[in-house]
Each structure stands twice: as structure tokens, then as C-alpha cells.
């Protein structure tokens, strides 16, 4: 018997273990299937596994089942109704049917209607096996067929690992040609895989290769179109082609070699590595940790803007990491992702500050956690010495008694000045924004606090400059000692930006009062290159900002400054130095401008003018007989400009007698220059420079170089 507990054990769709449908049968089956589909109106699908079934079951032992009846008993004889599941099932068939419908509906929603109705699936096979059922079962019930259907569906799932459980065979209407073509499988696979990238890559590569071949073909066409002159040429072309071919093969091999490692790391892995790298470099305060790069970039951008070159995107970045990324040309999405990661890392770092060493419980030692920011300390400088140095520095600020001017002390002062200047500049950058609507109160508070902090720093810097130390306690004055170092000179323009006007005036007064002791005032500095560099530095750093300051002072102060200048310094010495002459010129020209009543300043009254004239006469009488000595021996004519300028400033304010003295004294220099300019061998621009220099002076007297008659040799 082919019965098992009253079930028909013959597999559906198989007779005697073999699928034996001839063409007519198949067509008949097809027709029935379509008819059923029309009748039920269902989305009809065929899960065909007949063709792909590997007939493994054929090898199973079908004989020696003689004792089955003894083991399981003769079901025909004393069957009873214990195992008549079909009948039981039929009783609850309507309920089952309903349940199944519900399930299908749910499934349709979930799977987007990909799954077919199980019942229909079974029915279509059942159509072919109608007689079998009629024999074995009392009557095919809907519920029973449903159960079978679900069973056959699972077998389809198991048996079709290649095609998956999808519905990709739905397009094939017949059984005969339902083996899908390779392309269809591929398309189906790529569709079910959700169009993943790895499925499409080979086809893209193929396309690329095709295009390369096309290019080659095109090249060959061009070659073919050319008239061929000789055998050698053909051979050459062939060789070239072979070479190209070989190179292409090599390139392909190399690409394949590299491509072998493609996709080894996922995006997550790459992000992880990036994070490690960036977390080492990123900082929450770029002006502290990345100061050079930040300021350098800002300066360069400003410079480029001044040059008229539009600044690139690097400008205004608060974070140095940005421009780095941008320079590398990463695409927008990657950049954004990195940006987010950077922010996360920064906030993480803020939350838990890194420790320098870790003590593991139970361990005998400590584990040092060194990083780039916190390297292992190799030098152990004793704390005691550092304390002494700082302790020795600070009291001097308050008690100016034992002020020493040893070089390292002065250098220490200068460094302290720099420290405060940097702090002030940092404060300037952190200036609170102007108040927004509704937050005036808050903003005012912030601004007030900022002003206080700024004021404290500015005062500390002012103290460190030691300008207020009384004159005469030490020689040279501490402030002058600071100015005697090039470092100290360089810091002055930056200091002046943070000073109040009266502080600047004090600074200028102190400088003027001690001018003689400046090293740039001494004659010997002109002898060597380094001395000249110092003078150049003084002229470039200290003179311009003070010139700007003096050009806004009232007459009274100019008079006072010049009086102090003449009083406290040997004019003959000072006037021989370039900076000294520059300051004298500055005061003289400023006084002259104010005397003539230019600008918004009131014309000085009688008393002030008298004071001024007195001062001028004193200066003139001191310098008399020395005017020609102001010219540097062997100086080139461009270096003389400042002397001519000074002479012009003197000439403007001079009386007729004084003018006469002036002209007599510098007559030789004027003649020398005019003769040199007229000499045929000198270059025209040099000659023009000489004439312009002389004219600076002569114009102040109401004369011109062209009026100078050169005495015959």
C-alpha cells in the first residue's frame, strides 16, 4: 500500500517517482491553470520545481517494505476515525479558509504581493492529479488543499535555492520553456538584491573595457585611413599595436591585482580609522593649539585680498581642519561626515579630559599615556630655579629700586611684554559680539566683563614696559634698555595698539627724554651691518606709529616735547643719527603745520608761538656750523633724503638771517649734487633723485635746483 496513516504518500506531480508529462499533458495543464486563474481572479503564480528537481529521491529504497503492514497495522482494515484528519479538517474547513485568507492578506501587505496564494498553487497541481485524490481522499476540500498548498510551497522554498523564493518565474506561462535565461536570472538577482553595488560593478567594468576597445578600434581606423607607404611602416605600426596591446594587458593585470583588495574595509571601518587619526589632531581651541596655522592663513588671505586675488574658501574658518580637508578636495558628503565626527570628538574630549597616566588596580607601576600633545618628558628642570626667576621679576614692577639692566633681565621683561600682548590680542579676537535684540542686558554684562579683563591685561603690560620708572635711577632707563633689543623694538607697534592716548604720550615723552641713550643714536652703530639693521628696524617699527600720534597732537604738546628733547639731549649728537633727525623733522613740520592753522586745530596764541620761536632759535644755534656734518660721509644720495627733509623743515621756520646761514653751510652739498646730476655718466633716475633731494630743501627757501648756477671748473 502506498498509504501512510491514511495519507496518500504519492508526491504531487510525480507518478512512480518520475515526472512523466508529455507535451499534450503539459499543454492541458497549462490551459487548466489559466482557466483556474481566470475563474478565481487571483494573482496566479507558478512555482515550478519539476524541471529543477534532481531526482535524488529515486535512489531511496522503495523495496523491503513488506513489514510495514505489521509495524503500522493494516490501515484499511481497522482504520477507524482516529487518524482521519481529513474528515476532522473538513469540519473546520470554513474557519481554516477564513484564517488563511487573513494570513494571505497580511502577507500580501508585508511582501508587497510577491507571494502567491497557496491554494491556487496547490490547485494547479491538483488539476493534474485529480484522480489520485478522488481515490485516496473522500473529496478534495478547500481547507485540505490549502494545507497541501502551504506544504508544497515550503518544498519549493527548499528546492529552489538558486532562484530564491521570489516570483521571477511568473512571466513564463508554459512548463516547457520555463528555464529562465542567464540574463533573466542576473536581472532578477540584482533586483532582489536591491540593486547592490557589487552586482553592477562587473557590468560597468565591462563597459569601460568596451570603450577602451572602441578607442583602439577608432585609432586603428585612423591608421587604416592613412596611406601606407612602406612595409617598414606597417611593421612599425604592428609593433606599436603590439606594444599598446601589451601595455593594456599589463595595466589590466595591475588593476585586477589592486581590485583584489577592493571592499576590504567597509565605510564604517574607514570612518573608525579616520576618527582615530582626527582625534589626535583636532582641538577645541584652534587659537591655542593651532595658532601658527590659523594666524598665518588669516594673514595670507588678507594679503591676497589686498593683492586683488579673491580669497579662496579657506578664509574665515574657525577650525584649521576645515581648510585641510578642503585642500584635499574631498567631496561634500565626506567632508560633512568628517565635520560631524570632529565635533563629536571635540565634545567628547571636553567631557573627559585625558589623563597622563593610568594606575591599574593591583598593578605595581603606572602606565604612562603619552600622546603628541603630551609627550614623555625628557628634561626635568628644577621648579626652584623657575620660582626664583619669576619671584625676582614681579616685585620689581612695584618697587623700582634695584632695577638691573643685565641682558637676561631685560630679555625677561621683553618676553613678559610679549606674553601680555599676545593675551591682549587673544582678548581682542574674543571680543563679545554687539548686542542682539532682546539680549542687551546679557550683552552689556559680557562687554563689561570683557572690558575689565582687557583693562587688567593692558595695565599689566604697561607695568611691564617700565616706562613710569623715574629717570636717573639707572642708566640707561629700563624702557630704553627694552628698546635697545630688536625684539623690544618689534613689540612696540603691537603695544601701542593697546595703549590709551595719555599712555602713548607718556611713552613718547620718556623716549624723547632719554633719546641719547638709545643705541641707534650712537655713531658707532652706523659702522656695521647689524647696527644699520637696528636703525632700519627702529625707523620701520617705532617711528611710523609715533609719527601718526604726533600728527594729531596739539601745538602745546609739540612745544613741550621739543623743549624736552633739546633740554635733555645733546642736539649735535642726536641730529647726526637718523632716528634723531627723523624726530626733529617730525616736531618741526608738525609745529609749522599748526602755526599755519591747518586742520581743525586752533591757531596757537601769541605766547605759544613765542615759546616756539625761542625753542627754534635754541635748536638752530646749537646746530649752527654742524649742518654740513649731518650728511653722512660716503652716504649714497638715497640715504641723504632724511637730512634734506630736516633741512627743509628747518628752512621753513627760519628767519632770513638763519636761512642765509643754512644756505651758506650746505652750499657745497647742493652744488655737489647738482653737478653730479648734470654729469653725463650718471643714470637719469639717479640724477632725478639727486635733484629731488636738493629741491626738498631749496623749495622750502623758495628756490629751485634749476636756478643754481654751476660755477665753471
Amino acid at each position, binding site marked *: 500500500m502506498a498509504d501512510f496513516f491514511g495519507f496518500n504518500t504519492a508526491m504531487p506531480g510525480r507518478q512512480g517517482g518520475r515526472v512523466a508529462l508529455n507535451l499534450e499533458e503539459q499543454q492541458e495543464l497549462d490551459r487548466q491553470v489559466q482557466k483556474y486563474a481566470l475563474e478565481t481572479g487571483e494573482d496566479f503564480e507558478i512555482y515550478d520545481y519539476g524541471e529543477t528537481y534532481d531526482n535524488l529521491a529515486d535512489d531511496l529504497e522503495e523495496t523491503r517494505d513488506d513489514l510495514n503492514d505489521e509495524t503500522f497495522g493494516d490501515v484499511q482494515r481497522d482504520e477507524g476515525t482516529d487518524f482521519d484528519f481529513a474528515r476532522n479538517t473538513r469540519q473546520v474547513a470554513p474557519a481554516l479558509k477564513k484564517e488563511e485568507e487573513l494570513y494571505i492578506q497580511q502577507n500580501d501587505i508585508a511582501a508587497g504581493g510577491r507571494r502567491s496564494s497557496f491554494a491556487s498553487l496547490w490547485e494547479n497541481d491538483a488539476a493534474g492529479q485529480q484522480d489520485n485524490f478522488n481515490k485516496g481522499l473522500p473529496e478534495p476540500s478547500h481547507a485540505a488543499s490549502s494545507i497541501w498548498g502551504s506544504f508544497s510551497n515550503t518544498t519549493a522554498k527548499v528546492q529552489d535555492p538558486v532562484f530564491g523564493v521570489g516570483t521571477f518565474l511568473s512571466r513564463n506561462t508554459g512548463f516547457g520553456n520555463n528555464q529562465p535565461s542567464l540574463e533573466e536570472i542576473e536581472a532578477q538577482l540584482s533586483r532582489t538584491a536591491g540593486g547592490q553595488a557589487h552586482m553592477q560593478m562587473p557590468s560597468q567594468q565591462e563597459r569601460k573595457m568596451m570603450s577602451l576597445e572602441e578607442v583602439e578600434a577608432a585609432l586603428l581606423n585612423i591608421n587604416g585611413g592613412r596611406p601606407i607607404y612602406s612595409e617598414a611602416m606597417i611593421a612599425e605600426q604592428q609593433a606599436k599595436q603590439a606594444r599598446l596591446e601589451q601595455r593594456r594587458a599589463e595595466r589590466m593585470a595591475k588593476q585586477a591585482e589592486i581590485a583584489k583588495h577592493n571592499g576590504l574595509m567597509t565605510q564604517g571601518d574607514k570612518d573608525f580609522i579616520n576618527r582615530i587619526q582626527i582625534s589626535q589632531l583636532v582641538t577645541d581651541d584652534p587659537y591655542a593649539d593651532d595658532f601658527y596655522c590659523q594666524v598665518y592663513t588669516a594673514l595670507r588671505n588678507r594679503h591676497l585680498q589686498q593683492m586683488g586675488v579673491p580669497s579662496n574658501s579657506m578664509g574665515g574658518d574657525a577650525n584649521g581642519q576645515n581648510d585641510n580637508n578642503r585642500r584635499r578636495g574631498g567631496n561634500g558628503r565626506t567632508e560633512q561626515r568628517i565635520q560631524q565626527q570632529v565635533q563629536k570628538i571635540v565634545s567628547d574630549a571636553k567631557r573627559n579630559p585625558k589623563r597622563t597616566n593610568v594606575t591599574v588596580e593591583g598593578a605595581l607601576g603606572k602606565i604612562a599615556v603619552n600622546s603628541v600633545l*603630551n609627550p614623555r618628558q625628557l628634561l626635568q628642570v628644577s621648579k626652584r630655579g623657575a620660582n626664583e626667576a619669576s619671584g625676582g621679576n614681579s616685585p620689581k614692577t612695584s618697587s623700582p629700586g634695584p632695577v638691573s639692566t643685565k641682558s637676561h633681565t631685560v630679555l625677561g621683561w621683553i618676553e613678559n611684554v610679549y606674553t601680555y600682548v599676545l593675551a591682549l590680542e587673544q582678548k581682542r579676537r574674543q571680543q563679545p559680539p554687539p548686542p542682539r535684540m532682546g539680549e542687551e542686558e546679557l550683552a552689556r554684562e559680557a562687554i563689561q566683563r570683557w572690558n575689565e579683563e582687557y583693562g587688567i591685561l593692558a595695565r599689566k603690560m604697561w607695568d611691564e614696559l617700565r616706562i613710569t620708572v623715574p629717570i636717573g635711577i639707572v642708566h640707561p632707563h629700563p624702557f630704553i634698555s627694552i628698546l635697545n633689543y630688536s625684539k623690544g623694538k618689534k613689540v612696540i607697534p603691537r603695544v601701542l595698539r593697546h595703549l590709551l592716548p595719555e599712555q602713548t604720550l607718556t611713552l613718547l615723552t620718556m623716549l624723547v627724554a632719554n633719546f641719547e641713550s638709545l643705541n641707534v643714536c650712537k655713531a658707532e652703530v652706523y659702522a656695521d651691518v647689524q647696527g644699520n639693521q637696528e636703525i632700519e628696524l627702529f625707523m620701520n617699527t617705532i617711528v611710523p606709529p609715533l609719527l601718526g600720534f604726533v600728527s594729531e597732537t596739539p601745538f602745546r604738546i609739540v612745544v613741550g616735547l621739543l623743549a624736552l628733547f633739546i633740554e635733555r639731549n645733546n642736539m649735535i649728537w642726536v641730529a647726526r643719527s637718523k632716528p634723531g633727525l627723523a624726530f626733529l623733522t617730525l616736531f618741526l613740520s608738525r609745529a609749522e603745520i599748526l602755526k599755519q592753522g591747518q586742520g581743525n586745530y586752533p591757531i596757537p596764541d601769541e605766547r605759544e608761538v613765542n615759546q616756539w620761536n625761542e625753542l627754534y632759535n635754541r635748536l638752530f644755534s646749537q646746530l649752527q656750523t654742524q649742518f654740513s656734518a649731518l650728511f653722512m660721509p660716503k652716504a649714497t644720495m638715497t640715504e641723504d633724503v632724511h637730512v634734506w627733509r630736516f633741512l627743509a623743515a628747518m628752512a621753513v621756520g627760519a628767519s632770513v638771517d638763519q636761512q642765509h646761514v643754512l644756505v651758506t653751510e650746505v652750499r657745497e652739498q647742493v652744488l655737489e649734487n647738482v653737478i653730479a646730476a648734470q654729469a653725463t655718466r650718471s643714470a637719469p633716475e639717479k640724477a632725478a633723485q639727486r635733484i629731488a633731494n636738493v629741491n626738498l630743501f631749496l623749495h622750502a627757501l623758495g628756490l629751485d635746483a634749476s636756478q643754481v648756477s654751476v660755477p665753471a671748473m
Partner: protein
Amino acid sequence: MLFYSFFKTLVGQPVTVELKNDLAITGVLVSVDQFLNIKLDNIKVVDEERYPHMLAVKNCFIRGSVVRYVQLPAPSVDTALLQDAARRERQQPAAARR
């Protein structure tokens, strides 16, 4: 971080890197990291006769620890700013340095 910050501004500039094995390589600085590992492009070895095997090399990655000197293009170094940066670095208390 001062040196890293400094070298970052030199990206795209030609530099000469002298290694501890006396090899000196001139090239355009491509990138630098916190260990002062250096990537160079369009490289040229200064003493080509001595190192002919380097002729074919077009770009390279140099581990920071093998660098002896880096020769910089003078115009692209702001020494005053570098001094300020060094001052700032010193000012930061060691504890604040992560």
C-alpha cells in the same frame, strides 16, 4: 602641536627633507601629520649619482622619526609669527595640554 601647525602651512610648497641615512629628497609637500610623517610628490633625490635606484620613484612617504632636517622655502615662513606661536605654546600650562 606647534610643528604640526607650522608644517600644515607649508603644504604645496617645495621642501628638501634630509634623512638620517644622508638621503636628501626634494619634493612638494603633500601632507604631514602629528608625528611629522611627510608625504612628498614629484620627488628628486639631491645626490642622484649616489642613489640611482631612487630615479624611478615619483612620490614617497617618509616616517617622521627618520627625518634629520627639513629645508624650508624662506618666503613662506613667518618667523615673527613663529616666535609668537612658540610663546603661546609655552604659556599654555602643561595640564591644559591634552
